[in-house]
């Protein structure tokens, strides 16, 4: 009977296998790219969405004025050219005459003006609004020209405009109030269908100003378990996938037919201390924690070494050698000395919070840090929370320490002004500011000379590593996996999938 029972199961599986094989050819249409990711977009309004998957989807449908390329250089998108005035208080754009929305209408300066006015309107609830507050007024001398008048010089503004959160949407759709329910952009793909948490269907936009796309369409499936994504790639059901967990990504190269693309990203893994809570109020305690942590070991254990130890500046053109920063070489003796000087020779207890699966390495990072800090007498209690619960606590600054993966931007000012300026929106999260940090940020914002900017931010980095409100750990990779017959994908540090517009599938 046991035999009988197993036979039933085996024949059931065989049936499944047969049906599986039978079903596969139906899917194989050469011109459609089958893609998978574990987390789906959360909405269609490009001005409101900030989730990673939402941005990746919307970048294929909407276009901003400019884009950043793989080396983070600003390149044309809807705008053909742009120029800052001599005093840095005027930014003008010439639009691409061929740019067209997917409803057939040309993209005009009126659409640009309406889009930015929508972002700046508080009723919209656009989180990116904070990046555009220097815009005083917008002029549209002719349908193909836009001039932004700024209240103060704002060099990072251009980088902020390259984000899909600053996408140009049709003025007519804004008036109709249909942004977010219909996705009408000027990008390479049209969104034909969106079934949240299940799938997206995209088709090529024949009128795209950027030329013809390499595939006729993209079908995105949401497969919540990354092991299942890998399994589906092995059986050739999926051509292209986004992976988050290094534990899964590192298995991809072991498959002969699969290729793993990885690129260092701007986002950084960090241990945020809360300097408003005792004893992290003490400079020496924070420094001791920084000295007691072996960043390379956190990276090696939690991410299987997939990444690079980093200082606060993760942008390649700005980054300095992290080995030069304060205590980037582990020094337990120094840490113990600092603890004793601060009056905590016996250590203390604190709680560290983390979000489940966000990033997938969060729990592992917390555990390695816990064991490292135990050596200087700091007893950490780990609390892993559901993402939303974590975000709530994080925003309220309701934590002693937090492991986080914070997003990066192509410009250090845009990336950090929210935390490390006196008026920063997230000062209540960072809970630390001093005059040096604030003045360096303000100088960096106004400086137009790239070399001088770099020097300013290098000073900023050196100072913040020394006062250690946060312990920057490492940057990891963004992973995409693909079948080897998929050609033309260019991974970029921002994580954008925009180059899918030129990807082809070879037979």
């Amino acid at each position, binding site marked *: *009977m*046991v035999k*009988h*029972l197993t036979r*039933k*199961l085996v024949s*059931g*599986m065989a*049936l*499944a*296998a047969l*049906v*599986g*094989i*039978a*079903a596969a050819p*139906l*899917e194989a249409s050469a011109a459609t790219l089958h893609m*998978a990711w574990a987390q789906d977009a*959360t909405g269609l309004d490009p001005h*409101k*969405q*900030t*989730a990673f998957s939402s941005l990746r989807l919307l970048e294929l449908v909407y276009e901003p004025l400019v884009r950043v390329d793989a080396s983070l250089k600003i390149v044309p998108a809807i705008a053909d050219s742009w120029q800052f005035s001599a005093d840095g208080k005027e930014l003008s754009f010439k639009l691409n005459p061929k740019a067209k929305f997917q409803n057939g209408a040309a993209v005009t300066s009126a659409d640009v003006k309406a889009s930015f006015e929508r972002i700046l309107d*508080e*009723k919209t*609830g656009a*989180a*990116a*609004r904070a990046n555009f507050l220097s815009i005083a007024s917008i002029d549209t001398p002719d349908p193909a020209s836009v001039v932004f008048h700024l209240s103060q010089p704002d060099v990072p503004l251009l980088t902020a405009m390259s984000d899909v959160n600053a996408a140009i949407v049709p003025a007519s759709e804004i008036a109709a109030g249909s942004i*977010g*329910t219909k996705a009408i952009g000027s990008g390479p793909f049209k969104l034909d269908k969106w*079934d*949240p*948490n*299940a*799938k997206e269907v995209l088709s090529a936009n024949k009128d795209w100003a950027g030329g013809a796309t390499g595939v006729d369409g993209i*079908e995105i*499936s949401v*497969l*919540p*378990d990354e*092991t*299942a994504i*890998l*399994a*589906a790639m*092995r*059986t050739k*059901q999926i051509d292209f996938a986004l992976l988050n967990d290094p534990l899964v990504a590192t298995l991809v190269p072991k498959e002969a037919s699969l290729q793993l693309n990885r690129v260092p990203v701007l986002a950084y893994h960090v241990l945020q201390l809360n300097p408003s809570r005792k004893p992290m109020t003490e400079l020496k305690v924070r420094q001791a924690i920084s000295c007691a942590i072996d960043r390379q070991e956190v990276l090696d254990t939690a991410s299987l070494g997939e990444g690079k130890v980093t200082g606060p500046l993760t942008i390649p053109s700005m980054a300095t050698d992290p080995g030069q920063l304060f205590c980037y070489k582990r020094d337990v003796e120094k840490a113990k000395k600092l603890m004793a000087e601060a009056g905590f020779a016996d250590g203390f207890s604190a709680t560290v919070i983390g979000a489940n699966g966000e990033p997938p390495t969060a729990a592992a990072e917390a555990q390695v840090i816990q064991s490292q800090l135990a050596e200087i007498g700091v007893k950490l209690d780990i609390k892993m929370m*559901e993402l*939303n*619960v974590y*975000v*709530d606590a*994080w*925003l309220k600054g309701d934590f002693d320490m937090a492991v986080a993966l914070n997003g990066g931007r192509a410009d250090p000012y845009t990336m950090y002004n*929210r935390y490390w300026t006196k008026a920063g929106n*997230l000062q*209540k999260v960072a809970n630390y500011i001093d005059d040096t940090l604030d003045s360096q940020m303000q100088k960096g914002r106004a400086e137009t000379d790239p070399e001088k900017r770099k020097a300013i931010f290098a000073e900023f980095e050196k100072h913040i590593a020394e006062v250690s409100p946060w312990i920057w750990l490492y940057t990891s990779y963004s992973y995409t996996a693909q079948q080897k017959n998929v050609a033309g994908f260019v991974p970029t540090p921002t994580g954008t999938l925009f180059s899918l517009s030129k990807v082809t599938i070879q037979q």
Partner: protein
Amino acid sequence: MTYLLRRLAVFPLVLIGVSIVVFVAIRMVPGDAITAMLGTEAGLLTPQQRAALAAYFGIDQPWFVQYGRWLLGLLHGDLGISTTYGRPVLDVILERFPLTLELALLSMLIALVVGVPAGVFAATRNEKLSDLGVRIAAMIGQSTPNFVLALLIIYTLSAGFGVLPAMGEFAPLWQDPLRNLGQLILPAITLGFAFAASVTRISRSAMLDVLSDDYVRTARSKGASARSVIWRHALPNALIPVVTLSGIEFGYLLGGAVIVEQIYALPGLGRLVLDAILQRDYALVQGCVLFIAFNFMIVNLLVDLAYAALDPRIRLGEN
């Protein structure tokens, strides 16, 4: 009849209880639709922006006002609009329900086809080695967490044999029956595994009970063949507990199989409600839980009725 009416009369009470619990609990969980949408970027919002978004998501009023509004809608058959889907909650649920129903039916089918014969067989071999084998197999089935089984199945098939039923886009039964079956068979086996084990155990013990009953002994003494005793006389009576167990288990499965749906990427009720919780789509959570609770109660009522129909000794309405 009065029994049926009395049971049905309780339904609205229980459903209101369920809805209040969900309503309050989901709002007590930290984080809301705004943080779910914006993540940490929500910290960049000005108070005015926040207020505008709260009004958009319908979470700008105290919970009892929201509840009153929701209850009023419910009386008109309106479960509200899902903020993630931008569509009426009931539409979204009804779109996902066929899959959950099909998966539950398929799992039950597997459980009964495997479990009942195995249980009967074991009962006839009471305390022999083969009986022990079946019982141990059944217990292993009952004690395997389904996510372990699901991961093992996927890994073995894809890495070992290079096959896997189509993941991703789900094909409804009426559109593409073959593909549909291919997608559901593994999840159904995963869920049916433990289910079959319970059915095996219950049919075995029920069969043993019945075989020791007077009328079976009478039938035997009258010279009925062993085969006819088992299949004609004993089995129908032994089936009563099997029906009860299957019904209750089926009722649970109709609530969606959160973890299995997650691993096999099936857009069923379980994942719908989990995603709704994670995205703080309050209307959808309420709608789903209410829908699941309603189904559960209906199935239980049917089970009780079937129980009474199968066993004339039982009179409903007493406790």
